[in-house]
């Protein structure tokens, strides 16, 4: 009996050791949940059209992905991380301190962030400044100087020709990359339109940042969770509300929701591509040069992801809602990938 038990323990230990020794032949990708729907399409095609196994892609968020990516070099760390923002210099330093020296940055395209309402809702046209007034915690005092707690309850309070319905906007929580991008692209630019706040930038920069980036919490802005499908079904039920979500969800649900126009342009494919709809952000992925040639298939995966048939103007990722790069950007990106040019901050 005891001999048998010892035997089992030894066998179990041996299996563990064997598991450890087994080399990884599969590309391991982590990172942003915004890039996830695009990266998975490429990975699936790559698995189907080459003899390599399909890469595994974890949706960890941009920050979480970069943290895993920068843990070191070797099979137990991911080869590629997706990001819906550029890598920060602190993250480059973290990587370097763990031995991840050479990283290739790949810009794959742009993602629009739509502000939309139900197809049965009113047509609306707002500026970034007006969105800031509707959504910020503190706004310039409408009848005087200084800053006050947001007094606006209806859209018509902000501009008289906007609908006189209560302000209700469903948006992503602070943990989401979409939220970061929305704050950066709409709130921070919108708040700079007001002299009362713009003057703060010189005198009290922390206060300026805080005023621009803090969303109101009195019920007008509703954090609706990470799930964009949920926001769409809520807009479907509430025609006076607005929602903030990724462009691909707008594209897929054109029978339920429509974009409102921000600074004179609606979130349509063409408007985002030519830059007239300005609420869009770049999408990246980062590759560990040290893993290229060690983990089989990375070069081929890069070639597939950066090919014209994937990210070109008629590529299959464009059908999924990705906004393509301009020709010059594409050439620069392709050059960086083909020569594995290391990232320089």
């Amino acid at each position: 009996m005891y001999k048998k038990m010892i035997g089992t323990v030894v066998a179990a230990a041996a299996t563990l050791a064997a598991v450890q020794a087994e080399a990884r032949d599969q590309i391991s990708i982590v990172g942003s949940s915004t890039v996830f729907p695009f990266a998975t399409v490429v990975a699936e095609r790559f698995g189907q059209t080459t003899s390599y196994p399909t890469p595994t892609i974890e949706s960890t968020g941009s920050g979480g992905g970069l943290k895993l990516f920068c843990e070191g070099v070797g099979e137990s760390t991911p080869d590629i991380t997706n990001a819906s923002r550029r890598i920060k210099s602190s993250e480059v330093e973290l990587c370097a301190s763990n031995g991840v020296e050479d990283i290739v940055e790949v810009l794959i395209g742009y993602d629009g962030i739509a502000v939309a309402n139900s197809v049965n809702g009113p047509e609306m046209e707002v500026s970034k400044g007006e969105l800031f007034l509707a959504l910020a915690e503190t706004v310039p005092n409408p009848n005087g100087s200084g800053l006050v707690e947001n007094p606006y309850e209806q859209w018509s309070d902000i501009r008289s020709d906007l609908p006189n319905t209560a302000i209700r906007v469903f948006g992503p929580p602070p943990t989401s990359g979409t939220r970061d991008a929305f704050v950066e692209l709409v709130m921070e630019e919108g708040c700079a339109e007001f002299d009362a706040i713009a003057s703060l930038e010189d005198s009290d920069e922390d206060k300026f940042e805080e005023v621009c980036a803090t969303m109101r919490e009195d019920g007008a802005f509703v954090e609706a969770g990470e799930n964009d499908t949920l926001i769409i079904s809520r807009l479907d039920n509430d025609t006076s509300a607005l929602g903030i979500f990724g462009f691909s969800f707008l594209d897929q649900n054109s029978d339920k929701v429509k974009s409102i126009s921000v600074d004179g342009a609606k979130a349509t494919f063409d408007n985002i591509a030519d830059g007239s709809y300005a609420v869009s952000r770049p999408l990246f992925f980062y590759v560990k040069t040290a893993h290229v040639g060690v983990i089989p298939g990375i070069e081929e995966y890069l070639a597939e992801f950066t090919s014209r048939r994937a990210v070109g103007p008629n590529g299959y990722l464009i059908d999924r809602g990705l906004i393509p790069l301009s020709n010059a950007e594409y050439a620069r990106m392709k050059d960086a990938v083909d020569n594995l040019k290391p990232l320089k901050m």
Partner: protein
Amino acid sequence: MTDQSRNALERLAANKHERLNARLKSRYNRERRFRAYGIASIALGLTFLAILLTTIFSQGLSAFWTTYVKLDVTYTPEVLYIDDATDESQLRLADYDGVIRQALSERFPEASGRQTMRNLTGMVSTSAGYRLRNRLMENPDLLGETETLWFLADDDVDLLMNGIIDRNLPESERRVNDQELEWIDSLVSSDQIERRFNTTFFTNGDSRDPETAGILGAAMGSFYTLIVTLALSFPIGVAAAIYLEEFAPKNRLTEIIEVNINNLAAVPSIVFGLLGLAVFINFFGLPRSAPIVGGLVLTLMTLPTIIISARASIKAVPPSIREAAMGLGASKMQVTLHHVLPLALPGMLTGTIIGMAQALGETAPLLMIGMVAFIVDIPGGFTDPATVLPVQVYLWSDSPERAFIAKTSAAIMVLLAFLAVMNLLAVFLRKKFERRW
């Protein structure tokens, strides 16, 4: 006694009787109200269950049927760019989408122009090309031949056939444009389009194309994970419970252990995920996203549940059984293994199955160890990257494509079916082996 005093007494008695009756009535009323509260809370629960199930079923049933399109495809070497059928790499990289495009343009000769052709080929799933490739690679003699095959239709076509996309909406609000509608109607009238039971859903792994996405990969991942969990947590849990109940001395130390086990049962599961990441992946170097790590983490999570239920069922074995066996000269170990364990086993199994059902529905600890991932290949072992059923539900619910809404509900139905089977098994085992004294 005078009449007057008798009257007074009678009145008093009648009064008392009345008061008693009133009190009795209020007691009965109180009881009736209490029952009504109970019934109301059950009714409320049932209503929510009914709402949940009807939404899941009404959304999910459509995912069990899918649309197929019949096409005559010709493996023309010139279209495929194959000049040597024995060269495997040529067969692998050939332009199979071109074959589909050709078949469709033969069916709809009036279609021309780049965008129109794109829309036309977009009506058939991208998996059609892979299917042709697999057929030709299996049997290179097909080169130059013509076959009639049923292909999976694109998810938008399926949604239209299913009535989820409303064809009466204006064209700009509809994912299927007017020309595509015309093509579909033409295919319908020539019986080239058909809805069938969706076997793909049960035989494929995950995919980003809703029409080819299936549940098998996640189901196999759950299977391997639960095997590891069961193989570890049942023996360890039962051994711990037997030792604590039958052998351990009752002192301060065992009391502390007992309190800790009860506490662990209430620890949020994400904590076990963090522990698993630190110990199994970072320290022991086990692979990420593997069922073996998932199983280990879920073992940590279910062990307290199993130990607690196993101890309860050992406690329920009457002391007279132990005393009788001891009286006949059995050793402590014989008493435990021959008498107590067999009698306590049904209860232990029930506890284990409930613990397993809990583990089957868990996602939070798996996030930390990389099992919340997009994995296409169906896992074939304990170290292959895998995901599990509830994670699949989460990933699909987060996908932009409309057709994934039905898939999400269908995956929930599969998960619920597994849970129901496991709970039924628990009930069955209890009914069959349980002994009452």
